[in-house]
């Protein structure tokens, strides 16, 4: 079991989720809307397979479809696949994505960088998908986020562990709409170039992970961008931007921000 104090997988080379966090456990009381949507989808797709096959009217086809569709229906209805728990757990672990990890070197003292990060209300300035963070005191905070697709999410989080100027660990509270847990480290760069800021973040596995990417907007690229914004803000006092500058007539596609 790996608790929040353990070092990142940069150092250990492991990537498994700690056992005491949600993982992909669909049998919890309050499973959240995403899981329910997922389960409904499975039931529907399983049923749809059989229905489509039935339209063809040939028993072999219907039989094959039922074989394919039944597990889906079962999974959707009960919350686990019709296989032994050990097999299901292995599969779930396999679907669990490894933690997202990124690092950047910033030429400022660790204390200054830590202080900025610890003041959680600052984080929306560098995290593109976070609209607001309210510090509720006692290590707890309330987050409002949005993904590129415009989906909004709100969740509560708690600081699991902190060491001033060195390390900060957090996780979303159980039952949250969005699951994530992470740690940020601030270590002196060995060559005197500043401080290496490392982030390791975890999202729920399987469908939850996919949901996390799509609706929560957190991916490796996003974390890297957030760190770059952090670096720019700390080193220069501002974040370089071209939003709001003039341009000529755009094409239809050109109105999308992403130029590729």
């Amino acid at each position, binding site marked *: 079991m790996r608790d929040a104090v353990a070092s990142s997988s940069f150092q250990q080379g492991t990537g498994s989720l700690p056992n005491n966090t949600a993982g992909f456990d669909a049998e919890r009381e309050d499973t959240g809307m995403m899981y329910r949507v997922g389960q409904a989808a499975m039931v529907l797709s399983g049923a749809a397979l059989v229905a489509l096959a039935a339209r063809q009217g040939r028993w072999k086809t219907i039989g094959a479809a039922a074989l394919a569709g039944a597990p889906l229906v079962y999974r959707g209805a009960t919350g686990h696949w019709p296989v032994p728990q050990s097999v299901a757990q292995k599969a779930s672990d396999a679907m669990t994505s490894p933690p997202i990890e990124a690092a950047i*070197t910033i*030429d400022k003292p660790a204390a200054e960088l830590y202080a900025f990060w610890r003041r959680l209300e600052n984080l929306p300035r560098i995290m593109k998908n976070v609209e607001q963070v309210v510090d509720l005191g006692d290590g707890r905070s309330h987050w409002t986020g949005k993904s590129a697709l415009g989906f909004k999410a709100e969740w509560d989080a708690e600081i699991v562990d902190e060491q001033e100027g060195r390390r900060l660990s957090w996780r979303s509270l159980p039952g949250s709409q969005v699951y994530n847990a992470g740690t940020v480290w601030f270590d002196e760069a060995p060559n005197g170039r500043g401080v290496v800021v490392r982030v390791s973040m975890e999202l729920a596995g399987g469908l939850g992970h996919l949901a996390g990417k799509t609706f929560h907007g957190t991916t490796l690229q996003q974390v890297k961008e957030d760190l770059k914004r952090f670096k720019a803000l700390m080193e*220069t006092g501002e974040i*370089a931007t071209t939003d709001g*500058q003039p341009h000529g007539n755009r094409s239809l596609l050109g109105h999308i921000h992403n*130029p590729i």
Partner: protein
Amino acid sequence: MRAVCWNGKTDMRVETVPDPEILNPRDAIVKITSTAICGSDLHLYDGYVPTMKKGDILGHEFMGEVVELGREVKNLKIGDRVVVPFTISCGSCFFCKKELYSLCDNSNPNSWIAEKIMGHSPCGIYGYSHMTGGYAGGQAEYARVPFADVGPLKVPDGLEDEKVLFLSDIFPTGYMAAENCQIQPGDTVAIWGCGPVGQFAIQSAWMLGAQRVIAIDRFPERLLLAQTWGRAETIDYEQVDSVLDVLNDMTGGFGPDSCLDAVGMEAHGTTIDAKIDKTKQNLKLTFDRAHVLREAIMACRKGGTVSLAGVYGGFVDKVPMGAAMNKGLTFKMGQTHMQKYMRPLLERVEKGEIDLSRVITHRLSLEDAPGAYRTFRDKQDECIKVVMKPDGHFHAHGHSHGNGNGNGWEH
């Protein structure tokens, strides 16, 4: 305001767009009095640079008057006359502190795009595709200048625009390329490309102590300027069978000590490799045409230096790395570290060591830009360098605007 906007391959249009605004505390707004078309703009014109969007404002060689300041800019005043470097640098990151300003970590908001192609991103650049940040450029009436406390160089009133404008890019670029040649006493420097950057590289090679400068091109007016102003020996590559043989003859069998590529990715050549390059580029199999790069490697003497000033965007084929490795060549290259060179080079201009306006052949209105791009690219009308002024500037001085035939305005 009026601005030159990219609308697709060979489609530049002057459009009316909103004026720029201060977006960050270290920004300034500059009212542009003179601006130029760069050889690298031609790669945008010919559609060879990816991540362009219809409507992007071009131009990265510009100067003018400060008209607005962000609250954190303390070293400039409203009314200051400044030349703006084409690269945007923060001044505080690892690279800026090492004077490697074109490698700034913090000035490209789209660094992720450049990272995909290059591994790491160079700095932001005005008017040069979204890969370098998508910054609106300076072929316009106004420009927003980020990190205005690091970039813009104040210039004295006594020097008119065309005597200082090229401190914005091409003079420092030619100079840094010549410096990258690592010139020793007695050295021969061969320079491919007698466009404006090549001309300034020639001038700089003498300043840096070269004993001989050999310049290579095919356009008579450019070779002539290299001879008369540049005091260089010249080779017209369309008149000789082999540039390599000629260079070897001229250097008594050594080859030039340093080879400077002031041409870049749209190299033109008469040999088979150049033809293959062009075909592949047309078929979109490759970004860059490397003819000059190949020739420079083959021509360079053993243990010599190859200096790259010409812009490359992506990937090149069939570059003789075997020759480079076995001859023990040194390669030095990069986008210009502007802030390192602008001030010392302004001093040279102030002392009268060099007249930057010698490369100008066409003086036009900003409204003439679409035609000017074609003229510049095709070297029509003996075009070497185009400088443009926004029309408002004309009217203020009571002259008629350009007619596209050169010398569109006078002082």
